[in-house]
């Protein structure tokens, strides 16, 4: 074990790149904020705040997906993650940071009374509308703010407790009794996170943050859809970091076998995403009720038609056909390519989920979207890199480490 390189050092090149991306992103963000965000034109405001909103939500959710990955694998007593577990841990340290940005943006929208984004903020319209009145118990500023605060705070706190527990596996060898207790404590902590994750990402939060843009429309599939979208992108992000560190000569104990399992997650959840995409679409298409088809009308027949179906090709057909073969999931180059493609595809998915409802007339995808994306990519690289360098890359004394080292698919 002595020869393992467990201490990650942030390379200067990585720092330069992330600062450059952040700088580029900040420039676009600030320029957009003053020309659009604070402009008197409602349309421009919606464009800016909507773009910022879907980006912040997307990045918070995909970083949080890492903690969900840790939690479910811990609950399933899966040992194979141990050789690279510090990567999802490092990615999940971004939840408080990106969560705070999301929180600020959402709060600005709610308290800034942006009723062109959230129609239910308009008290007069709600009072005159029986459907919105019926939803007022859920769609109101007080509940929104309390639930959003709780959501982000508990994601951060419960995730922090899980990471903190795993630090004990760095300290020194554990005897049998200690390891059993250690595993049990991990199970309890990850179970708490998973329950909260289910109550938030699995149900309420996507309804509250994104579905409520179409205040009249509802779909019970929506949260699942959002969850899977963020989870598959989150797995791709983990894959990218694993491959990056392998390339730099770290993670000697992680091999193709582990990559294969991550690849399987990317493949399987792409299919699951399509299943939900289709289930949501087909039921509405079949029933053809105007109050339900309103969501798909401008997406399948209007300006967003191209993006809507491009989304299906990138997120379904490509993973299905490219990642299907065993050898593809074990190929570093192909998995890298697919991971980038999947993250991009689901970013586009979030884009059409939010902007498709906010700017129905034309597709707004442009410098602002890519600028803010650059900001988040840069911030993600910088913060994950820093978080990785703070701890050993392998928790040496974890009871499941051996299982992970000899893992074979």
């Amino acid at each position, binding site marked *: 074990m002595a020869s393992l390189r467990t201490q990650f050092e942030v390379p200067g090149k990585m720092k330069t790149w992330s600062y450059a991306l952040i700088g580029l992103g900040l420039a676009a963000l600030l320029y957009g904020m003053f020309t659009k965000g604070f402009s008197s034109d409602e349309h421009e405001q919606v464009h800016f705040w909507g773009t910022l909103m879907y980006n912040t939500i997307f990045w918070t959710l995909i970083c949080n997906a890492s903690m969900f990955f840790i939690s479910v694998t811990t609950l399933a007593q899966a040992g194979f993650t141990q050789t690279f577990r510090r990567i999802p841990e490092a990615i999940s340290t971004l939840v408080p940071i990106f969560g705070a940005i999301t929180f600020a943006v959402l709060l600005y929208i709610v308290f800034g009374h942006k009723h062109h984004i959230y129609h239910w903020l308009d008290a007069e319209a709600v009072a005159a509308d029986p459907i919105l009145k019926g939803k007022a118990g859920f769609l109101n500023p007080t509940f929104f703010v309390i639930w959003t605060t709780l959501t982000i705070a508990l994601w951060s706190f419960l995730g922090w407790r899980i990471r903190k527990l795993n630090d004990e596996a760095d300290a020194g060898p554990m005897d049998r009794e200690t390891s059993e207790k250690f595993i049990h404590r991990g199970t309890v902590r990850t179970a708490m996170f998973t329950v909260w994750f289910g109550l938030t990402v699995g149900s309420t939060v996507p309804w509250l943050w994104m579905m409520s843009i179409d205040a009249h429309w509802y779909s019970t599939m929506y949260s699942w859809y959002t969850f899977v979208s963020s989870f598959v992108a989150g797995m791709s992000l983990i894959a990218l970091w694993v491959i990056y560190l392998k390339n730099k000569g770290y993670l000697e104990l992680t091999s193709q076998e582990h990559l294969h399992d991550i690849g399987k997650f990317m493949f399987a959840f792409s299919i699951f995403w399509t299943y939900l995409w*289709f289930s949501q*679409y*087909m039921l509405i*298409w*079949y029933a*053809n009720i105007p109050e339900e088809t309103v969501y798909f009308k401008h997406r399948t027949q209007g300006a967003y038609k191209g993006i809507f179906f491009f989304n299906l090709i990138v997120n379904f057909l490509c993973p299905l056909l490219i990642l*299907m*073969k*065993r050898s593809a999931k074990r190929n570093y180059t192909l998995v890298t390519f697919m991971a980038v493609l999947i993250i991009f595809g689901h970013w586009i998915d979030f884009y059409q989920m939010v902007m498709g409802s906010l700017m129905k007339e034309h597709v707004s995808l442009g410098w602002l979207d890519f600028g803010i994306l650059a900001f988040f990519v840069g911030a993600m690289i910088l913060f994950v890199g820093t978080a990785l360098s703070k701890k050993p890359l392998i928790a040496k004394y974890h009871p499941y480490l051996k299982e992970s080292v000899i893992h*074979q698919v």
Partner: protein
Amino acid sequence: MAKKKFVVGCFDDEAVLFPAVKKVRTAGYKIHDVYTPFAVHGLDHAMGLRETSLHTAGFIYGITGTATALSSISWIFTKDWPLNIGGKPHFALPAWIPIMFELTVLFAAVGMVLTFCYLCQLAPFVKKHHFHARATDDLFVMVIECTDKTNTDDLQAFLQSNGALETKVEVAEDGWWLGRYDKDEMPFEEKQIVAA
């Protein structure tokens, strides 16, 4: 099918089996098969078996299922017997996808099971020779195919020196034949318990 001569070596430990397989292969002997009571990870690599094509076959069966469903439904609903169902277009793709999906799964599953049975030569009444009854219980049984030049005594000694607990020479059918285990010879012998 032809009868062939085999040398059989039995091992009781994976850790002994793997180096033995490696040595037997390096020595140039041809391993007919290794019979194990459970799936042993990595043994296929150690034996130098090529990767199975079963999944490729599965993919082709699946595609066939999709194509069958799509072509038949689209022919029925647009050409043969067009019906107005809920005012939908005749070519109502979303409604067909569940059926296309299910036919894909059906074709792939049934096709792969049959192909697997074919590859393993498994079928009702198909019989194969058992080299050692304990291969289904607690022994790893390595079977080596002999040529005219193979010195079976040397080979047995070689296996024993590599950790084989028991070795024997057998002349046996290497393929399958029709028969029934309960009517023909039993794959195992009743052990005679002799009082000491």
